[in-house]
Structures are given as structure tokens and as C-alpha cells.
């Protein structure tokens, strides 16, 4: 799986969880929770989506690594390598 495919999968998952997010204007380094008002249920839904689409299990302890879009993509790339 290429980095671009992982990126697309992440943004699709994010977009399903919070359809209001303007992905084109997304700053990859901003805190997703603060920027888009994501709560713990949203983050859980995001990890469920990623598990279903990328078959990657994200342990709860790793959730802080999904704080920013850039960090999340890096993390997923490392998990899927």
C-alpha cells in the first residue's frame, strides 16, 4: 500500500466521521480534536473505520498519535510497513 493510498483512506475515514470537515483547507499539523470538535466517540469511530478499511488495529494507547493528520498518516504508514 502506498503512502498516498493510506492518506486517502485516512481522509475518507475522517470525512465519514465528521462530514463537515473541509479537507482541502486542512492544516496537516493542527490538532484534529480542537479544529473539528471531535469527541472520544468520534475518535473511536475513526479507529473503527481505519480498522475496517486498512485492517490496522490501533491500540488505545496509540490514540494520541492520531492527534494531527500528518502524525496519523505517519503512524499508519509505520503500522502498515
Amino acid at each position: 500500500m502506498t503512502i498516498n493510498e493510506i492518506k486517502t483512506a485516512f481522509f475518507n475515514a475522517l470525512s465519514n466521521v465528521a462530514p463537515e470537515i473541509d479537507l482541502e483547507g486542512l492544516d496537516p499539523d493542527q490538532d484534529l480534536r480542537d479544529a473539528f470538535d471531535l469527541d472520544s466517540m468520534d475518535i473511536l469511530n475513526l479507529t473503527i473505520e481505519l480498522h475496517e478499511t486498512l485492517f490496522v488495529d490501533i491500540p488505545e494507547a496509540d490514540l494520541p498519535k492520531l492527534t494531527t493528520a500528518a502524525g496519523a498518516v505517519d503512524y499508519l504508514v509505520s503500522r502498515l510497513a
Partner: protein
Amino acid sequence: MAEFRMPSLGADMEAGTLVEWLKAPGDIITRGDIIAVIETQKGAIEIEVFESGELTELLVKPGTTVPVGTPIAVINSGEPETEVEHPQVVLPKIPPPQAASTPSPEPEMPPYRTVKVSPAARRLASERKVDITKIAGTGPGGAIISKDVIANVSIQPRGLDLAEMRKAIAAAMARSKREIPHYYLSHTVDLTQASEWLVQTNADRLPAERLLMGALFLKATALAIAQRTGFNGHFTDGAFQPSGPVHTGVAISIRGGGLVSPALRDTNTLTLDNLMVKMRDLVNRARQGRLRSSEITDATVTISSLGERGVERLYGVIYPPQVALVGFGRVTRKPVVVGDAVLPRPTVVVTLAADHRVSDGQAGARLLADIDTLLQKPETL
């Protein structure tokens, strides 16, 4: 033969607009089936029926706004009719002019309009169910680009009209502050046990099976509420009508500024796993504006949890005709005295807003103490 009427989904609702019929004449329906979608101030609501039988007639066309109590469909429940031989005659048809009182939901469009739409925008519009013929483009030559579709999605978050929702909140909360003599209590609960148990429990679970602290709060509160009188039920017609089952209204915030508290039924009897599944479903549907009529009316007490990003303490406003609201602030690490030591511990402040016409601070204090006790034994929830 029974008339199915436009239901009242709260004291502030006067009329509803029929959006869509989900059943057709001739269909056999069972109590609890969803037969239609109506548009209200709380968003699009799926309407359940209270009878079983054959749906024989639809009396209201989609797009029509009718007052609460207006017959909108006829259900043949199969019971022998004695007094009504010609039911068709006694059923008032809704005259089509009703529709004229509200703007038609489908304004007439010119038969053909040349609009440039970028392929990405077209795909996005179809995914997000945005009608591309009704938005303006800001791209070259007025073309619709992704940004325009996104802008439209955020204005209208899927069947939810946030301005209307604000009016509904205002009406309910003004009534609450006018009629309900609130009293408030608060109590700090040490969550060390609950947090450790949650981490252990979730460690070997796949994401879809994990539990959130919010589920523990809901279950502990529902169990405590079920053991006490004076917090679970409705205050109507000058008297408190206690409820046996605990149907917790779960306060759910809507991104963009809105709040709805649909009922999660029989919270005290659900397993944590089951409760979690229902909570996820409820949050998702609330945010999409797809709640059911019973979920709007059935809550017997409300629980509001600020989650990870809120503040420490919330002061609830009771949702009438309920008589209590239990609030949970953000889970915060605080110094706690344990024996002779001061240790950093995860804590949460639990608050109670309750109705003094029904209960007193003494009983309220015991309720909060019960919630504390239950949260110290998360494995028993």
C-alpha cells in the same frame, strides 16, 4: 380501523412536515415499525407506529405541514368494527390547500440549467447527498468545485436545521427555568479503578468492541437512579409521575452548535457492551438528523457528559417534563488524599440538577454517593 396521527414530540411542537412515507398502502406493519419521516425543529424524525395491522390509506402527501393530532394514515388493526361501518366517511381528508401554507420543498427549477461541475465536486456531492442544482459555484465561469459542495454541507448538516433546533432548545429551557425550582449538588469521584479497568478491558479488544468512560457513567447513573425515587419520571399536570424503567436522555452535541437528548431505553438493564453499541448508534443518528419519535419523547432523566475536551463541572438545566439531570465534567488528574499521601488521580466532578417540587438535597446527595460507589466497582456494571 385506527387513525394514525401526527405525533407531538414535545410540548413546544405545534406542527410537523411529512418528508417521506416509508410504507405503502397494503403493507402489513407491526407496532414499533417506522412508517414515515417528518421534519421538526429537532431535525428529521423517523415516526414509529403504536398499532399493528394493515396500512390501508395515507392521508397526507410528502411536503405537507399539518398540526399535531391531524390523522395522517389509516391502519386496519384487524379488530372487528362495530360502530363505524364506513370508516372512509368519518376520516377527514387533509385538503391539499394545507400544502400551500408552507413553501413547497421542491421549488420549481428551470427545466435545464447549464452548470459546470468539477468531477471531484460531483463525486463529493453524491457522497454527501448535496443537490448540485441548488448550489452556486465559485470556480472559473461559475463552475461548482469541491469547496462549494463542502460549504453547502456545513450549512445544512444532513437533515438538521440548527436555527430551528436552537428555537426548540430555547423554548424547552425557558420553560424549565420558569417552572422548575432547581437545586444543585456536586461531588468529586476518584476514577482510578474505573480508568484502570477500562484500559485493561480495552487492551485486547478490537476498536468496534471498545468501551468509553461515558458508557460507565451512563450505566452507573442509571443503576443509581433506579434505586432511588424522585429523579426518574415526568412532572405533568401538577404531579410527579414516577417511571419504572430508566430511559436516559443522552445529551449529544451537534457540531456547528446544537444539542439533542434522545432516549436510550432501559439503560439500567443493558450490559456495557450493549449500551456502547446503542450509544454509538444514537450519537451517529442524532448527528445525521435521523432520530425516532419515541427517542424524542421517552427519556425519563437526562445524563450529560462533557467528555475529554470540556471543563471540570457542568450545571444542568432540567429538560421538562423530567425532574433531574446528572452531569459529568471532564476527567481530570487531581491531587487526592489517599491514606496519608497526596497522589495524582483521575477524577470527575458529578453534578445533579434536580426538581425541588419532587426531591430534596438529602436524597440528591445519596444519589451522587451511590453513583460514586458504583464507579468504584466498574467490573460489576
